[in-house]
Protein backbone atom coordinates (compact mmCIF):
# COMPACT_ATOMS: atom_id res chain seq x y z
CA UNK A 1 0.00 0.00 0.00
CA UNK A 2 2.28 2.70 1.22
CA UNK A 3 5.34 3.52 -0.71
CA UNK A 4 7.85 2.75 1.98
CA UNK A 5 6.34 -0.08 3.94
CA UNK A 6 8.32 -2.88 2.33
CA UNK A 7 11.90 -3.34 3.29
CA UNK A 8 13.52 -2.92 -0.09
CA UNK A 9 12.42 0.69 -0.40
CA UNK A 10 14.14 1.64 2.79
CA UNK A 11 17.57 0.96 1.37
CA UNK A 12 19.16 2.14 -1.83
CA UNK A 13 19.83 -0.93 -3.92
CA UNK A 14 22.64 0.03 -6.25
CA UNK A 15 24.74 -2.58 -7.96
CA UNK A 16 28.18 -1.22 -7.10
CA UNK A 17 30.04 -2.26 -10.24
CA UNK A 18 27.54 -0.53 -12.53
CA UNK A 19 27.54 2.67 -10.51
CA UNK A 20 29.88 5.49 -9.78
CA UNK A 21 31.32 3.84 -6.74
CA UNK A 22 30.66 3.57 -3.10
CA UNK A 23 31.49 7.14 -2.16
CA UNK A 24 29.36 8.69 -4.89
CA UNK A 25 26.34 6.55 -4.17
CA UNK A 26 26.60 7.10 -0.45
CA UNK A 27 26.88 10.82 -1.13
CA UNK A 28 23.82 10.64 -3.35
CA UNK A 29 22.02 8.75 -0.66
CA UNK A 30 22.93 11.30 1.95
CA UNK A 31 22.05 14.29 -0.20
CA UNK A 32 18.78 12.80 -1.36
CA UNK A 33 17.86 11.75 2.15
CA UNK A 34 18.42 15.30 3.33
CA UNK A 35 16.55 16.82 0.42
CA UNK A 36 13.59 14.47 0.62
CA UNK A 37 13.09 15.08 4.29
CA UNK A 38 13.36 18.84 4.22
CA UNK A 39 11.17 19.83 1.30
CA UNK A 40 9.94 23.32 1.92
CA UNK A 41 6.68 23.89 0.08
CA UNK A 42 5.79 27.04 -1.75
CA UNK A 43 1.99 27.03 -1.48
CA UNK A 44 0.34 28.44 -4.58
CA UNK A 45 -3.25 28.11 -3.46
CA UNK A 46 -5.93 29.64 -5.64
CA UNK A 47 -9.09 27.72 -4.78
CA UNK A 48 -10.70 25.09 -2.59
CA UNK A 49 -7.68 22.76 -2.88
CA UNK A 50 -5.82 25.32 -0.79
CA UNK A 51 -8.28 24.67 2.04
CA UNK A 52 -7.42 20.98 1.94
CA UNK A 53 -3.78 21.94 1.79
CA UNK A 54 -4.22 23.99 4.95
CA UNK A 55 -5.92 21.01 6.56
CA UNK A 56 -2.92 18.90 5.56
CA UNK A 57 -0.60 21.38 7.21
CA UNK A 58 -2.70 21.57 10.37
CA UNK A 59 -2.33 19.35 13.38
CA UNK A 60 -4.55 16.41 12.38
CA UNK A 61 -2.45 15.47 9.36
CA UNK A 62 0.65 17.44 10.27
CA UNK A 63 2.75 18.05 7.21
CA UNK A 64 5.68 18.73 9.53
CA UNK A 65 6.14 14.98 9.97
CA UNK A 66 7.57 14.90 6.46
CA UNK A 67 10.02 17.72 6.91
CA UNK A 68 7.68 20.36 5.49
CA UNK A 69 7.63 22.28 8.68
CA UNK A 70 7.95 25.65 7.12
CA UNK A 71 5.64 27.03 4.46
CA UNK A 72 7.90 29.14 2.33
CA UNK A 73 5.88 32.05 1.12
CA UNK A 74 8.83 33.30 -0.85
CA UNK A 75 9.75 31.25 -3.91
CA UNK A 76 13.43 31.96 -3.33
CA UNK A 77 13.54 29.76 -0.23
CA UNK A 78 11.26 27.02 -1.51
CA UNK A 79 11.91 23.52 -2.81
CA UNK A 80 8.55 22.30 -3.97
CA UNK A 81 5.79 24.31 -5.59
CA UNK A 82 2.38 22.96 -4.61
CA UNK A 83 -0.13 24.41 -7.03
CA UNK A 84 -3.51 23.95 -5.36
CA UNK A 85 -6.46 25.13 -7.38
CA UNK A 86 -7.39 26.41 -10.79
CA UNK A 87 -5.07 28.79 -12.57
CA UNK A 88 -6.66 31.39 -14.83
CA UNK A 89 -4.80 32.61 -17.89
CA UNK A 90 -4.20 35.93 -16.19
CA UNK A 91 -2.20 34.11 -13.52
CA UNK A 92 -0.20 32.00 -15.99
CA UNK A 93 2.78 34.37 -16.37
CA UNK A 94 2.87 34.89 -12.61
CA UNK A 95 2.97 31.16 -11.93
CA UNK A 96 5.75 30.76 -14.46
CA UNK A 97 7.71 33.60 -12.93
CA UNK A 98 7.36 32.10 -9.45
CA UNK A 99 8.66 28.82 -10.81
CA UNK A 100 11.60 30.59 -12.43
CA UNK A 101 12.39 32.36 -9.17
CA UNK A 102 12.70 29.10 -7.25
CA UNK A 103 16.31 27.88 -7.00
CA UNK A 104 17.36 24.41 -8.07
CA UNK A 105 16.72 21.72 -7.00
CA UNK A 106 12.98 22.26 -7.25
CA UNK A 107 9.93 20.12 -7.75
CA UNK A 108 6.28 20.73 -8.45
CA UNK A 109 3.13 19.04 -7.23
CA UNK A 110 -0.07 19.71 -9.15
CA UNK A 111 -2.81 19.30 -6.59
CA UNK A 112 -6.34 18.59 -7.70
CA UNK A 113 -8.20 18.16 -10.93
CA UNK A 114 -8.19 21.84 -11.89
CA UNK A 115 -4.45 22.34 -11.59
CA UNK A 116 -3.78 19.08 -13.41
CA UNK A 117 -6.25 19.34 -16.29
CA UNK A 118 -8.43 22.40 -15.89
CA UNK A 119 -11.06 20.14 -14.38
CA UNK A 120 -14.62 21.25 -14.82
CA UNK A 121 -13.50 24.72 -15.90
CA UNK A 122 -13.26 23.98 -19.58
CA UNK A 123 -13.78 27.59 -20.54
CA UNK A 124 -12.11 30.67 -21.92
CA UNK A 125 -10.45 31.77 -18.70
CA UNK A 126 -8.74 28.76 -17.14
CA UNK A 127 -5.43 27.11 -18.04
CA UNK A 128 -6.04 23.50 -19.00
CA UNK A 129 -3.40 21.98 -16.76
CA UNK A 130 -0.40 23.77 -15.29
CA UNK A 131 1.91 21.37 -17.10
CA UNK A 132 1.37 23.63 -20.11
CA UNK A 133 3.25 26.32 -18.17
CA UNK A 134 5.73 24.60 -15.85
CA UNK A 135 7.03 21.03 -15.48
CA UNK A 136 5.11 18.92 -12.97
CA UNK A 137 6.51 16.00 -10.96
CA UNK A 138 3.46 14.61 -9.19
CA UNK A 139 -0.21 14.96 -10.05
CA UNK A 140 -2.59 14.49 -7.14
CA UNK A 141 -6.10 13.64 -8.38
CA UNK A 142 -9.26 14.64 -6.58
CA UNK A 143 -11.68 17.49 -6.41
CA UNK A 144 -10.30 18.49 -4.00
CA UNK A 145 -7.97 15.71 -2.85
CA UNK A 146 -8.28 14.71 0.77
CA UNK A 147 -5.24 15.41 2.95
CA UNK A 148 -4.35 11.73 2.75
CA UNK A 149 -4.22 12.11 -1.01
CA UNK A 150 -1.85 15.03 -0.82
CA UNK A 151 0.31 13.20 1.71
CA UNK A 152 0.45 10.25 -0.66
CA UNK A 153 1.58 12.58 -3.42
CA UNK A 154 4.21 14.07 -1.16
CA UNK A 155 5.48 10.59 -0.28
CA UNK A 156 5.66 9.81 -4.00
CA UNK A 157 7.67 12.95 -4.53
CA UNK A 158 9.98 11.95 -1.69
CA UNK A 159 10.53 8.60 -3.37
CA UNK A 160 11.32 10.42 -6.57
CA UNK A 161 13.80 12.66 -4.81
CA UNK A 162 15.45 9.70 -3.12
CA UNK A 163 16.02 8.02 -6.46
CA UNK A 164 17.75 10.93 -8.11
CA UNK A 165 21.45 10.69 -8.89
CA UNK A 166 23.85 13.54 -9.11
CA UNK A 167 25.61 11.77 -11.97
CA UNK A 168 22.53 12.02 -14.17
CA UNK A 169 23.28 14.86 -16.51
CA UNK A 170 20.40 17.10 -17.38
CA UNK A 171 18.05 16.21 -14.56
CA UNK A 172 18.14 19.69 -13.20
CA UNK A 173 18.67 21.55 -16.47
CA UNK A 174 16.09 24.18 -17.17
CA UNK A 175 15.06 24.36 -20.78
CA UNK A 176 12.99 26.91 -22.54
CA UNK A 177 11.09 25.76 -25.61
CA UNK A 178 13.59 25.84 -28.45
CA UNK A 179 12.07 26.02 -31.93
CA UNK A 180 15.33 24.67 -33.39
CA UNK A 181 15.09 21.48 -31.36
CA UNK A 182 13.78 18.32 -32.98
CA UNK A 183 11.53 17.76 -29.99
CA UNK A 184 9.81 21.09 -30.47
CA UNK A 185 6.16 20.86 -31.49
CA UNK A 186 4.74 24.09 -32.89
CA UNK A 187 1.41 25.30 -31.45
CA UNK A 188 -0.34 24.70 -34.75
CA UNK A 189 0.55 21.01 -34.61
CA UNK A 190 -0.58 20.82 -30.99
CA UNK A 191 -3.92 22.23 -32.07
CA UNK A 192 -4.16 19.70 -34.85
CA UNK A 193 -3.36 16.82 -32.51
CA UNK A 194 -5.75 18.08 -29.87
CA UNK A 195 -8.64 18.66 -32.19
CA UNK A 196 -10.44 15.34 -31.63
CA UNK A 197 -10.60 16.22 -27.95
CA UNK A 198 -12.26 19.51 -28.61
CA UNK A 199 -10.93 23.02 -28.66
CA UNK A 200 -12.40 26.44 -28.94
CA UNK A 201 -13.11 26.01 -32.63
CA UNK A 202 -14.42 22.47 -32.51
CA UNK A 203 -16.29 21.99 -29.29
CA UNK A 204 -16.88 18.26 -29.05
CA UNK A 205 -16.94 17.64 -25.33
CA UNK A 206 -19.90 19.79 -24.44
CA UNK A 207 -22.39 22.13 -26.01
CA UNK A 208 -22.11 25.90 -26.08
Amino acid at each position, binding site marked *: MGLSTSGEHRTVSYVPESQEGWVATRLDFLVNWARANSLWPMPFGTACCAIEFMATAASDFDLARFGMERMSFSPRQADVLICAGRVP*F*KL*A*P*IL*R*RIWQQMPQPKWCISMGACASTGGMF*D*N*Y*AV*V*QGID*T*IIPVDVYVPGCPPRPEGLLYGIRMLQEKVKNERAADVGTRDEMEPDPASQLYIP*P*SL*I*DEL*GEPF*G*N*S*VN*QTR*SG*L
Partner: protein
Amino acid sequence: MSRFEIVRTGASATETQPTTPKNIPHRNAPANPSAKALQEKFGGRVTRVEVIWGETVVFIAPESVKEVFQWLHDDPSQRYDFLSDLTAVEYRDPQVPIEIVWHLRSLPYRRFLRIKAQIPKGKPLEIDSVYDIYRAADWLERECYDMFGIKFNGHPDLRRLLMWESYKEGFPLRKDFPLRGRFSRSEQLRQALAQNPEARYSMEELTIADAFDELPADMKKRLSKGERTGE
Protein backbone atom coordinates in the same frame (compact mmCIF):
# COMPACT_ATOMS: atom_id res chain seq x y z
CA MET B 1 -34.71 65.53 10.37
CA SER B 2 -31.02 64.98 10.00
CA ARG B 3 -29.58 61.97 8.30
CA PHE B 4 -28.00 60.73 11.51
CA GLU B 5 -31.20 61.06 13.43
CA ILE B 6 -32.94 58.87 10.89
CA VAL B 7 -30.20 56.30 11.25
CA ARG B 8 -30.20 56.51 15.04
CA THR B 9 -33.91 56.30 15.63
CA GLY B 10 -34.57 53.93 12.74
CA ALA B 11 -37.49 56.07 11.61
CA SER B 12 -37.98 58.82 9.09
CA ALA B 13 -40.54 61.56 8.91
CA THR B 14 -42.53 59.89 6.18
CA GLU B 15 -42.33 56.21 7.02
CA THR B 16 -43.20 54.05 9.98
CA GLN B 17 -40.82 51.69 11.67
CA PRO B 18 -39.64 49.11 9.11
CA THR B 19 -40.50 45.47 9.71
CA THR B 20 -39.48 42.32 7.93
CA PRO B 21 -42.01 41.83 5.13
CA LYS B 22 -43.96 38.57 5.07
CA ASN B 23 -46.18 36.83 2.50
CA ILE B 24 -45.03 38.93 -0.41
CA PRO B 25 -46.98 38.29 -3.61
CA HIS B 26 -45.15 37.67 -6.86
CA ARG B 27 -46.62 40.73 -8.53
CA ASN B 28 -48.62 43.73 -7.39
CA ALA B 29 -46.96 44.18 -4.05
CA PRO B 30 -46.81 47.81 -2.94
CA ALA B 31 -44.06 49.56 -4.85
CA ASN B 32 -41.17 51.46 -3.39
CA PRO B 33 -42.40 55.07 -2.96
CA SER B 34 -39.38 56.24 -4.94
CA ALA B 35 -40.92 54.73 -8.08
CA LYS B 36 -43.92 57.04 -7.90
CA ALA B 37 -41.68 60.00 -7.12
CA LEU B 38 -39.55 59.15 -10.13
CA GLN B 39 -42.60 58.97 -12.39
CA GLU B 40 -43.82 62.33 -11.16
CA LYS B 41 -40.43 63.92 -11.52
CA PHE B 42 -39.31 62.48 -14.85
CA GLY B 43 -42.59 61.60 -16.56
CA GLY B 44 -42.06 59.85 -19.86
CA ARG B 45 -38.42 59.09 -19.24
CA VAL B 46 -39.52 56.46 -16.72
CA THR B 47 -40.87 53.89 -19.13
CA ARG B 48 -42.09 51.11 -16.85
CA VAL B 49 -42.36 50.16 -13.19
CA GLU B 50 -42.59 46.56 -12.06
CA VAL B 51 -42.76 45.02 -8.63
CA ILE B 52 -41.46 41.46 -8.49
CA TRP B 53 -41.38 39.65 -5.19
CA GLY B 54 -41.69 42.94 -3.44
CA GLU B 55 -38.71 44.48 -5.17
CA THR B 56 -39.31 47.50 -7.33
CA VAL B 57 -37.79 47.66 -10.81
CA VAL B 58 -37.85 50.99 -12.59
CA PHE B 59 -37.07 51.12 -16.29
CA ILE B 60 -35.64 54.42 -17.44
CA ALA B 61 -34.62 55.80 -20.81
CA PRO B 62 -30.89 55.24 -21.33
CA GLU B 63 -30.15 58.89 -22.11
CA SER B 64 -31.55 60.10 -18.78
CA VAL B 65 -29.29 57.98 -16.57
CA LYS B 66 -27.19 60.81 -15.26
CA GLU B 67 -29.98 63.11 -14.10
CA VAL B 68 -32.08 60.31 -12.63
CA PHE B 69 -29.18 59.08 -10.52
CA GLN B 70 -28.15 62.57 -9.55
CA TRP B 71 -31.68 63.25 -8.35
CA LEU B 72 -31.97 59.93 -6.50
CA HIS B 73 -28.67 60.61 -4.79
CA ASP B 74 -29.21 64.26 -3.88
CA ASP B 75 -32.90 64.67 -3.25
CA PRO B 76 -33.62 64.79 0.50
CA SER B 77 -36.67 62.58 0.06
CA GLN B 78 -34.68 59.82 -1.68
CA ARG B 79 -31.05 59.76 -0.52
CA TYR B 80 -29.91 56.69 -2.38
CA ASP B 81 -26.38 56.94 -1.11
CA PHE B 82 -25.14 53.43 -1.79
CA LEU B 83 -24.67 51.80 -5.19
CA SER B 84 -24.49 48.14 -4.27
CA ASP B 85 -24.27 46.61 -7.72
CA LEU B 86 -24.05 47.44 -11.37
CA THR B 87 -24.22 44.85 -14.09
CA ALA B 88 -25.71 44.07 -17.46
CA VAL B 89 -27.98 41.34 -18.80
CA GLU B 90 -28.05 39.98 -22.30
CA TYR B 91 -30.96 37.69 -23.02
CA ARG B 92 -30.82 34.62 -25.17
CA ASP B 93 -33.69 35.96 -27.25
CA PRO B 94 -31.91 38.18 -29.80
CA GLN B 95 -34.93 40.51 -30.00
CA VAL B 96 -34.64 41.55 -26.37
CA PRO B 97 -32.18 44.41 -25.92
CA ILE B 98 -29.27 44.40 -23.51
CA GLU B 99 -30.22 45.74 -20.11
CA ILE B 100 -28.00 47.56 -17.68
CA VAL B 101 -28.98 47.12 -14.06
CA TRP B 102 -28.15 49.29 -11.08
CA HIS B 103 -28.96 48.26 -7.52
CA LEU B 104 -29.37 51.23 -5.25
CA ARG B 105 -29.83 51.31 -1.54
CA SER B 106 -30.97 54.21 0.59
CA LEU B 107 -29.46 53.74 4.01
CA PRO B 108 -31.42 56.52 5.74
CA TYR B 109 -34.79 55.38 4.41
CA ARG B 110 -33.97 51.66 4.26
CA ARG B 111 -35.10 51.35 0.68
CA PHE B 112 -33.90 49.19 -2.13
CA LEU B 113 -34.40 50.19 -5.74
CA ARG B 114 -33.44 48.41 -8.94
CA ILE B 115 -33.03 50.62 -11.99
CA LYS B 116 -32.81 49.20 -15.48
CA ALA B 117 -32.03 50.83 -18.79
CA GLN B 118 -32.41 49.05 -22.10
CA ILE B 119 -30.03 49.90 -24.91
CA PRO B 120 -32.12 49.64 -28.09
CA LYS B 121 -31.12 47.17 -30.78
CA GLY B 122 -28.80 48.60 -33.39
CA LYS B 123 -27.59 51.41 -31.19
CA PRO B 124 -23.96 51.44 -30.00
CA LEU B 125 -23.48 49.95 -26.55
CA GLU B 126 -22.94 53.23 -24.76
CA ILE B 127 -24.38 54.72 -21.62
CA ASP B 128 -23.50 57.50 -19.22
CA SER B 129 -21.24 56.67 -16.33
CA VAL B 130 -22.41 57.34 -12.78
CA TYR B 131 -18.82 57.55 -11.57
CA ASP B 132 -19.23 61.20 -10.62
CA ILE B 133 -22.13 60.35 -8.31
CA TYR B 134 -21.00 57.01 -6.88
CA ARG B 135 -17.31 56.23 -6.68
CA ALA B 136 -18.31 52.58 -6.24
CA ALA B 137 -19.15 52.59 -9.93
CA ASP B 138 -15.46 52.70 -10.81
CA TRP B 139 -14.65 49.00 -10.81
CA LEU B 140 -18.26 47.92 -11.38
CA GLU B 141 -18.31 49.79 -14.66
CA ARG B 142 -14.89 48.49 -15.59
CA GLU B 143 -16.07 44.94 -14.97
CA CYS B 144 -19.20 45.56 -17.00
CA TYR B 145 -17.10 46.94 -19.84
CA ASP B 146 -14.74 43.98 -19.60
CA MET B 147 -17.45 41.35 -19.70
CA PHE B 148 -20.06 42.95 -21.97
CA GLY B 149 -18.24 45.63 -23.93
CA ILE B 150 -20.55 48.40 -22.81
CA LYS B 151 -18.88 51.79 -23.00
CA PHE B 152 -19.55 54.05 -20.04
CA ASN B 153 -19.22 57.63 -21.20
CA GLY B 154 -17.51 59.80 -18.62
CA HIS B 155 -15.66 57.05 -16.80
CA PRO B 156 -12.12 58.36 -16.23
CA ASP B 157 -10.27 55.06 -16.62
CA LEU B 158 -12.32 52.53 -18.54
CA ARG B 159 -10.04 49.50 -18.86
CA ARG B 160 -10.49 45.80 -18.53
CA LEU B 161 -10.73 44.65 -14.95
CA LEU B 162 -10.85 40.84 -14.86
CA MET B 163 -9.19 39.88 -18.11
CA TRP B 164 -5.74 41.18 -18.84
CA GLU B 165 -5.28 44.33 -20.83
CA SER B 166 -4.02 42.77 -24.03
CA TYR B 167 -6.90 40.29 -24.14
CA LYS B 168 -8.01 40.19 -27.75
CA GLU B 169 -10.86 37.72 -27.87
CA GLY B 170 -13.74 40.03 -27.10
CA PHE B 171 -16.23 40.23 -24.29
CA PRO B 172 -16.77 36.87 -22.58
CA LEU B 173 -20.27 37.23 -21.15
CA ARG B 174 -21.89 38.16 -24.46
CA LYS B 175 -24.15 35.51 -25.88
CA ASP B 176 -22.18 35.26 -29.13
CA PHE B 177 -18.96 34.46 -27.28
CA PRO B 178 -18.04 30.74 -27.44
CA LEU B 179 -17.55 29.16 -24.05
CA ARG B 180 -13.94 28.23 -24.69
CA GLY B 181 -12.97 31.50 -26.27
CA ARG B 182 -12.31 32.35 -29.87
CA PHE B 183 -8.72 31.17 -30.12
CA SER B 184 -7.23 27.72 -29.74
CA ARG B 185 -5.85 26.65 -26.39
CA SER B 186 -2.21 26.97 -27.41
CA GLU B 187 -2.79 30.42 -28.85
CA GLN B 188 -4.63 31.49 -25.71
CA LEU B 189 -1.73 30.25 -23.60
CA ARG B 190 0.81 31.94 -25.81
CA GLN B 191 -0.99 35.26 -25.53
CA ALA B 192 -1.48 34.86 -21.79
CA LEU B 193 2.21 34.14 -21.22
CA ALA B 194 3.14 37.11 -23.39
CA GLN B 195 1.38 39.53 -21.09
CA ASN B 196 3.44 41.60 -18.73
CA PRO B 197 1.94 41.27 -15.24
CA GLU B 198 3.55 44.50 -14.12
CA ALA B 199 2.09 46.57 -16.94
CA ARG B 200 -1.38 46.57 -15.48
CA TYR B 201 -1.07 49.85 -13.62
CA SER B 202 -2.38 52.93 -15.32
CA MET B 203 -1.27 56.48 -14.85
CA GLU B 204 -4.12 56.87 -12.40
CA GLU B 205 -2.63 54.43 -9.96
CA LEU B 206 0.34 56.18 -8.47
CA THR B 207 3.41 54.44 -7.19
CA ILE B 208 4.58 55.15 -3.66
CA ALA B 209 7.33 57.37 -5.00
CA ASP B 210 4.91 59.44 -7.03
CA ALA B 211 2.49 59.70 -4.14
CA PHE B 212 5.14 60.87 -1.70
CA ASP B 213 3.86 64.43 -1.65
CA GLU B 214 0.38 63.29 -0.69
CA LEU B 215 1.43 61.11 2.24
CA PRO B 216 0.64 62.17 5.81
CA ALA B 217 3.30 64.34 7.41
CA ASP B 218 4.41 61.83 10.04
CA MET B 219 4.82 59.09 7.48
CA LYS B 220 6.82 61.44 5.27
CA LYS B 221 9.06 62.22 8.20
CA ARG B 222 9.67 58.56 9.01
CA LEU B 223 10.27 57.66 5.38
CA SER B 224 12.72 60.50 4.94
CA LYS B 225 14.74 59.16 7.89
CA GLY B 226 15.42 56.04 5.92
CA GLU B 227 12.59 53.80 7.08
CA ARG B 228 11.58 51.66 4.17
CA THR B 229 8.00 50.80 5.06
CA GLY B 230 5.17 53.02 6.04
CA GLU B 231 4.04 50.81 8.90
